[in-house]
């Protein structure tokens, strides 16, 4: 039984008379206790997917179609008030920029205990106790002393730990981590990912990990979705994806990252640029950058088809 089922989700932005198809008909599931990574470059729609699940899309954006079924409830049918009960309680989210997402004028301890008071009706004195436990759990040193401090007194890594403490406070079923380590240095990044992994296992959460970094994906995800221009191009278990990438875009992405252990004279590079969301090419959206482009690629969008067990690809060539 999947925890989260997304069916044909479409989130569009209406700017002027332009229709920006940020997320354009994506379907996927998140199983219990699994980490699903969504990988993609800027403009691929990965963050908009996350915000759609949280129902945090504001005008000019709109979820125009689709279903988001979480624990067998369609989140898109809930009233805003009901959604508030889900948000922060059953589904929690951490963001890329911990400084932007923490309130600069409330002590970090109070921010952590807020969701406990709101969602779990924990009495205030107990909530403080629990918030301190959470701070210890995410390894913030001298929690007692730092409870009353403002977020500006903390370093980037520590702020992200606070965000994680807030997110796991109510023991959510699903944790959405949107580029959780992109703003951090690499030594801090590895610590934060380690913390997320251990919290996920301790609390039996599922995690939706959104990132552009294939290294982070390889080390943390169970399954992976590759997004490009609002569409899913490939979906596979992490082992299959790295062992046998099928979509030319995925193959290209993997080839164009410089390696740590072997030197090459010249890097592979995907020609061209990511198209602007108002100017997607007709047919397959990757067609003008693809080396194996065929006639049909320019005419019709291929479907996402399961080629091997659990390995889906949206490519005309792979379907032949």
């Amino acid at each position, binding site marked *: 039984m999947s925890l989260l089922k997304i069916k044909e989700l479409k989130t569009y932005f209406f700017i002027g008379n332009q229709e920006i198809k940020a997320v354009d008909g994506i379907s996927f599931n998140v199983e219990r206790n699994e980490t699903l990574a969504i990988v993609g470059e800027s403009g691929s729609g990965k963050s908009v997917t996350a915000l759609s699940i949280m129902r945090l899309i504001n005008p000019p954006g709109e979820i125009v179609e689709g279903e988001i079924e979480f624990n067998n409830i369609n989140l898109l049918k809930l009233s805003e008030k009901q959604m508030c009960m889900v948000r922060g309680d059953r589904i929690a989210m951490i963001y890329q920029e911990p400084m932007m997402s923490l309130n600069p004028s409330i002590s970090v301890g109070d921010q952590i205990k807020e969701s406990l008071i709101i969602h779990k009706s924990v009495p205030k004195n107990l909530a403080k106790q629990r918030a301190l436990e959470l701070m210890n759990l995410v390894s913030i040193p001298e929690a007692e002393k730092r409870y009353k401090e403002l977020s500006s007194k903390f370093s980037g890594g520590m702020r992200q730990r606070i965000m994680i403490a807030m997110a796991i406070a109510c023991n959510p079923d699903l944790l959405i981590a949107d580029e959780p380590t992109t703003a951090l240095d690499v030594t801090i990044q590895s610590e934060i990912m380690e913390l997320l992994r251990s919290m996920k296992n301790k609390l039996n959460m599922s995690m939706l990990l959104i990132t552009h970094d294939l290294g982070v994906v390889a080390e943390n995800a169970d399954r992976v979705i590759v997004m490009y221009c609002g569409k899913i191009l490939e979906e596979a278990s992490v082992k299959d994806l790295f062992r046998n990438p099928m979509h030319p875009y995925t193959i290209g992405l993997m080839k164009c990252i410089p*390696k*740590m252990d072997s030197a090459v004279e010249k890097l592979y590079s995907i020609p061209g640029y990511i198209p602007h969301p108002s100017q997607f090419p007709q047919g397959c959206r990757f067609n003008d950058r693809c080396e194996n482009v065929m006639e049909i690629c320019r005419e019709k969008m291929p479907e996402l088809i399961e080629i091997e067990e659990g390995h889906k690809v949206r490519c005309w060539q792979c379907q032949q």
Partner: protein
Amino acid sequence: MSKIIEIRDLTKHFQISSKLGTKVDFVKAVNGVSFDVLEGETLGLVGESGCGKSTTGRLILRLIKPTSGDIFLEGKNINQISDKELRRIRKDIQVVFQNPYSALDPKMTIADILSEPLSIHKVVHKYQYENEVKRLIHMVGLSEKDLRKFPHEFSGGQRQRIGIARAIATKPKFIICDEPVSALDVSVQSQILNLLTDLQSELKVSYLFIAHGLNVIRHMSKRVGVMYLGKIVEIGDVEDIYSNPQHPYTKILLSSAPIADPSKDRDRSFVKGEVPSPINIPPGCSFHPRCEYAMEICKSRTPFLKSIGQEHKVACHLLDFDEKVRG
């Protein structure tokens, strides 16, 4: 090969005052950095935020004045020269910035952006501007019709190409690339890295390549310097350092980088604590509070860079210790 750039004991301390302006503190951004860059080579500079790698770049550009130390461009000390001379020398040292969105004037067309350095440094005669600008835009893989456009009409990768075209316009001998691909997507990143490599072999220019991405540094550089709190803790041939890191910090840094291969189990070492503030740099070896091998001597004596092999230098007391133990 001759040396293009020599840096000797470069320091930069930024003065800051406390809220009431009474107590004066110093942010010790760069603390005695020395290195050379040879003709046509790329020296990588890697480190985490706040380690002083960008400040080092800005000091070499003389965008900021060093507190002490010397910078030699082809043997000439450019730290001591007049502003007029400095302006002339800027022709030889150019820079590519991290953020291509803010590094280009939004009100100038690409043709204007590219001809400005030509006119300031009188690279070619006025009537040749047009041809020269066309030549530059082709060199970075854009087309002539792009010259009439404004920066906002381009994507990040294209803007970075324009930034690079502007840097090579003055035919520099040395380009400082300050995180040139950090703001770009991976599929575009490799295009820009390849462009930089191609231009280097074509123009025989030297690069100081500043980045925090360890794989990018590895790809681009021949030699690499690892910085921590304003000091170089290890410097040497890139293959040497990546396969056989000696400084405890280098080891941790290299093991932290995520690798895009799920079949590899990583033996990852973590570092305790966080980077101390550059206002209160720990005495002795500045890494000692976080180092798992810290000894008594590390707390009081600053280790100096010592040669441990061909061109491989490390600043760590452990190496002396090892020598003594081995006798």
